[in-house]
């Protein structure tokens, strides 16, 4: 009885204190002007950057507490569709907009800004008994021949020439590719098309293609599982996923100097050095000649209308603030999730795009909260 009573009074005390705290908080908020709180936004699009975007949105709320940003990872195609229909405040895509997609945009919004946010890479992953998990070398034409089904065994002359001194088993090659439509496939097949005229003419490049050989698996996990299960398998994975998959990862030949480059966060970041602004439909960073670059690298973009007028002023301000923050402080968080940050210089160029965003005819400066 006594015990109960005491805990009851304790509860009253806590309650009183917390009410007091809330009261104090609200007074200080309303009397002083205070920092900009931000407003809610919605976006939709690419799945590849979804994990880093989720982290960014969460951390950005520490900066502007009202900035609840809802992002739906429905795929790049969906993102483009939603921003074209103006059902979201921003879109996201792994590929720059095609010319047809740009001409389908509503003209009243003054065109669209495509802002690169993070970089990623595609790796060639394999599982063959007798071959080391690192240091195995491939170049573009050989990789294309493997995925065309022309190179059928691991001991094939084409592979052997690239890997002198490595004893290769005669295991047959099983090709694994993505069955779902994916930006990863688009990047990989674009690279193969650039490397092999035969691939370019027979297969081509897109988010999904008609594969000449192999089995299709769902998502990165499916491809990784299929590779891991069968000796002699080879496939491609998104770098951020491959890091933890425990499979063999090939070094890829860089065309500019003939070096074999293992994929890494820094090598992918370096590849971004060749980005040119403004982004156009044929922008890509494949086979980047930049120093230290990994050949199969790609960017992902946020898509924002230049005229932010249909948004509220607070929303427009929040969007500008977020973009500024993502291209500055946000870049430091990228590595922790195995994405690669924009290389120095490119991030500055991306930042210099922001003044193209206007609200009711006026350029919005980033708030002091994000500049600090």
């Amino acid at each position, binding site marked *: 009885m006594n015990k109960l009573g005491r805990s009851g009074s304790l509860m009253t005390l806590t309650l009183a204190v917390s009410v007091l705290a809330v009261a104090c908080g609200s007074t200080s908020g309303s009397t002083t002007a205070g920092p900009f709180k931000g407003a809610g936004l919605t976006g939709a699009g690419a799945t590849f950057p979804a994990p880093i975007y989720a982290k960014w949105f969460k951390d950005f709320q520490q900066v502007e507490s009202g900035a609840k940003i809802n992002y739906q990872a*429905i*795929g*790049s*195609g*969906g993102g*483009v*569709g939603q921003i074209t229909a103006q059902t979201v405040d921003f879109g996201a895509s792994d590929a720059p907009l*095609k010319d*047809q*997609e740009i001409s389908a945009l509503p003209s009243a919004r003054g065109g669209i800004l495509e802002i690169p946010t993070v970089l990623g890479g595609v790796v060639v992953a394999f599982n063959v008994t007798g071959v080391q998990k690192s240091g195995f070398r491939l170049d573009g034409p050989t990789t294309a021949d493997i995925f065309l089904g022309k190179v059928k065994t691991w001991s094939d002359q084409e592979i052997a020439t690239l890997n002198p001194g490595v004893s290769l088993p005669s295991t*047959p090659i*099983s090709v*694994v590719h993505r*069955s*779902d*439509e*994916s930006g990863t496939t688009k990047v990989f097949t674009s690279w193969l098309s650039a490397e092999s005229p035969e691939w370019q003419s027979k*297969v*081509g*490049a*897109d*988010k*999904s*293609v*008609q*594969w000449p050989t*192999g*089995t*299709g*698996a*769902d998502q990165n996990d*499916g491809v990784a*599982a*299929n590779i891991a*299960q*069968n000796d*002699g*398998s080879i496939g491609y994975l998104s770098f951020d996923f491959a890091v933890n998959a425990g499979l063999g990862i090939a070094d890829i030949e860089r065309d500019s100097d003939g070096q074999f480059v293992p994929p890494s966060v820094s090598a992918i970041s370096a590849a971004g050095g060749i980005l040119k602004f403004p982004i156009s439909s044929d922008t890509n960073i494949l086979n980047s000649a930049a120093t230290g670059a990994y050949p199969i690298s790609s960017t992902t973009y946020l898509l924002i209308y230049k005229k932010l007028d249909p948004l509220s002023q607070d929303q427009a301000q929040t969007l500008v603030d977020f973009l500024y923050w993502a291209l500055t402080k946000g870049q430091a968080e990228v590595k922790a999730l195995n994405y690669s940050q924009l290389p120095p210089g490119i991030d500055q160029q991306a930042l210099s795009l922001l003044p193209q965003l206007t609200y009711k005819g006026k350029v919005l400066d980033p708030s002091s909260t994000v500049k600090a």
Partner: protein
Amino acid sequence: MARTAIQLDPNTGPPAPRRRSRVGDRVFKGASATVAVGLLALLALLLGDLAVGGARAFAKFGLGFITGRNWNPVFGREQFGALPFIFGTLVTSAIATVLAVPVSVGLAVLLSEVHSGWLRNPLAVFVDLLAAIPSVVYGLWGLFIMKPVFDHRVEPFLSATVGKVPVVGALFRGNPNGGDLFTAGVILAIMILPTVTAVTREVVATVPRELLEGAQALGATRYETLRMAVLPYSRSGIVGATMLGLGRALGETIAVSLVVGNGLGIGASLFKPGYTIPAVIASEFREATNVGVHRSGLLALAVLLVVIAFVMAALSRLLLRRSVRLMGGSATVAAERAAFQVNG
């Protein structure tokens, strides 16, 4: 009957509740009619939408959409032919049916006729539980546990034994590594097993006692009773149950997609990757845009799947109806009732 009698006699019931019940009846009738018509309208709308969406693909490729073997979604070289998907859908469903039906019938007979001991209830519950497992769980289990066993043990074994037999052997040759039609068919067999078993059990349970006792009185053994009384009586019901299972197998998406290999092959070997209509729709729909005819092609595939499913449903109806005439009804009514339960 009793209700009619009451209404005929004005002295037995107070008029007020009767009037209220008539209003209630009318409201209920109206409400259910609205819902029923609404449902039909919804179905028509869905079909119409699919057809309109798929029209561009049908118009562009014509009959070639059904007979074509290429499915090339690359922008600028688009070419869509559904034959590999139709083939894969029918083959995996056929494997599933061939494997599941004998087991299901055996199980159903065991559960309702033969075994009345300790095994019966746990087994029945277990089979029903199989139906409650979400298909993605089957898919993951298939991908991570069943597929490796099939790749490394079952398929090489079949290839080395049955594969040597002429004609039939052609089904079991080829590289067993990676997802293929056979693995997908086996997963589907496990998935449709509870459906077919449940319906078959209902059917077998309606075999009249007189028939069983008659057979036994004539000196038939248990097996003979089964073969001469139970199975002939429930044959049509079992066919109906099979059709239901087939219907489920045709539409299964995610589990198949994870193990079927998702390749465009058409050939004799079951150890080659295949692709099914639901799997390709699920794989490609999210990113397919209207810039080309890709999305339209997928919608046209959906129309084809609906047509195939309708044909199967119509066939099962026909078979069930035929058995009404043959059996005087009871078995079939039970089968139809069970069918509705399973579908619901």
